[in-house]
């Protein structure tokens, strides 16, 4: 069909409308994100002066070559596992939780939802410090094990503390999209499945779960990605005993003042993530 057909004109008008709706945020993101991002991209090809200033003009690939240092792979691999574990834990905890909230009456639902968010309107650092008290050798966990005669249990400065801290910090990011997805679901479909002799579990697996995958995908992305870059929680609760991607990048900018390398690391990380998200969506049968 040529562009001249009336339908094509209508489709064009429709596309224009979509474009116009996206325009404010489009422009916003181009101006306040894409343009700044180009600066970072440019910086990643620059070099560092001996005082830590970024020298533009002498473009090179030094920073990108450093990405192939085995240390980087090691750090990335470790961060990846931690982020995956965090995402999975969040999903396991948040799904039934969101399900529970979504099946309450509307009023209770709203109240519960806001109760989820309220703790996060306190100060992040103070919140995380509170976890130190809870996980320390005098904390409640430890006291329970002492009463049980299992001796002192210190979770603080272990990988478990990091996981607890990360799950705590990112759980709302998983709960919200999951809640939105489950709340919207057509329950008659589950009933239909039950009607068709599906057990509760099968009905969940075959109907509820597939219907809520958009929420699962959104939640997983919202948890996985920041978890991959997390650094304050691992430092405070995990004792920063290993280097993670997040603090490695932060250190480049703030300790080594090596902005080109920090930029290159960021660009590489974003490229990988964008690619991974793309693949994830493809696997999930959705367009990015």
């Amino acid at each position, binding site marked *: 069909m040529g562009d001249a057909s009336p339908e094509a004109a209508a489709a064009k008008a429709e596309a224009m409308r979509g474009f116009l709706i996206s325009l404010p945020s489009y422009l916003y993101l181009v101006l306040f994100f894409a343009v700044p991002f180009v600066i970072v991209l440019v910086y990643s090809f620059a070099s560092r002066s001996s005082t830590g200033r970024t020298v533009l003009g002498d473009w090179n690939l030094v920073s990108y070559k450093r990405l192939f240092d085995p240390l980087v792979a090691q750090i990335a691999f470790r961060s990846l596992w931690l982020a995956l574990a965090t995402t999975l834990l969040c999903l396991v905890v948040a799904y039934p939780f969101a399900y529970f909230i979504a099946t309450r009456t509307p009023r209770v639902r709203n109240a519960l939802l806001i109760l989820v968010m309220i703790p996060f309107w306190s100060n992040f650092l103070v919140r995380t410090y509170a976890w130190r008290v809870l996980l320390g*050798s005098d904390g409640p966990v430890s006291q329970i094990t002492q009463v049980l005669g299992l001796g002192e249990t210190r979770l603080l400065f272990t990988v478990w503390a990091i996981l607890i801290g990360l799950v705590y910090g990112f759980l709302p990011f998983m709960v919200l999209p999951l809640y939105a997805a489950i709340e919207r679901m057509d329950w008659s479909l589950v009933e239909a499945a039950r009607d068709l002799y599906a057990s509760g579990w099968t009905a969940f697996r075959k109907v509820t779960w597939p219907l809520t995958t958009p929420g699962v995908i959104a939640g997983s992305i919202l948890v996985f990605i920041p978890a991959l870059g997390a650094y304050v929680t691992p430092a405070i609760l995990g004792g920063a*005993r290993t280097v993670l991607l997040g603090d490695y990048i932060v250190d480049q900018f703030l300790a080594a003042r090596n902005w080109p390398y920090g930029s290159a690391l960021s660009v590489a990380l974003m490229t990988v993530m964008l690619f991974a998200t793309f693949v994830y969506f493809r696997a999930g049968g959705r367009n990015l």
Partner: protein
Amino acid sequence: MRRRTTWMVPIAVVGLMLAACGGGGGAGGDTTAAADTTCELDQTDGNLNLYNWSDYIDPELVTAFEEQYGVEVVESFYESNEAMLAQIQSGVSYDLIVPSDYMVSIMIEEELLLPLQKDAIPNIANLAPEFTDPPYDPGLRYSVAYQWGTTGLGVNLEAVGDAFVESWALVFDPELTQNFPGGVSLLDDPRETMGAALKYLGYSLNDTDLDHLAEARDVIRAAKPYIATFDSDQYDEALVNGEVSVSHGYSGDLLAAIWDAENPDAYTYVIPEEGGTLWVDNMAIPADAEHPCTAHTFVNFMLDGENGAALTNWTYYASPNAAAEPHILPEILEDPTIYPSDEIRQRLEIIADTGDYEINFTDYFAQAKS
């Protein structure tokens, strides 16, 4: 094709901007305005934009300054030297900043600081002699010390025993540390912790010999099984809460925590015999400060003996101000951990910027932790 043209716009904009800043990499442009100004004693030229660490000045001192000179002090706060540097480098305008020692030298080299007009700061004479010619700013051309302290070890005496060695071995020797309940805590800072390891090995903490750095890395690596945490924030609480037995950290924090502890006698702060870090925070005026004269007046105000004492009495950090000493609370002045003896001071070193080697410090530290 349309797609490409939409992309051309931001690229062109960026190009324009990069051109606009002259390829200088973000250093602010018009430094001349402030540099040409001559300031006289007690002169003010507007409100003071003070950029400082949080909770690092007695609010009453601020009020006193405001009342005395009829200007307002607009306070902003930063959480690291580097974040502050990024802002100054980008030309955000502040009138007075409080950078640490090594950051002063970086900022001088980057031409980010305004040379001080000593005529407007007669109280500079109040400074104790050891702060009149610091290595990071010889001759005090750009900065004046604000507060100082040391980096050392907080020790839980019950855990370590009374007859412990005052050495970095307390954190680096696995033979020792394996017996400490909870292990030890080290600063999560490449320069401080690599520096401590260098000191333990008998080198300078500004050593840039890569072999020495590798040795220092291996020291940390070997000690790691008993290092509970690399922590620059909460090591003081961790010590007095019994989470760790030895904490590597800054004098002020550790001392405050020990004083506030339920049984202060159970803890002490030591500077290892191999030596440690002496750190100095300084007042400096950014090159493109809008109100350099108010800033000079403020520096002079803070260097006043009574004001300097008030600052120390409030922060519990040592004052570089000799004229302040008569007014400082005796318990602070007489505390050997805040004001170490001359003998100990001999062993202290100030961290200097090592230029390109900063990368190596960061890298080796990352390797040590990995």
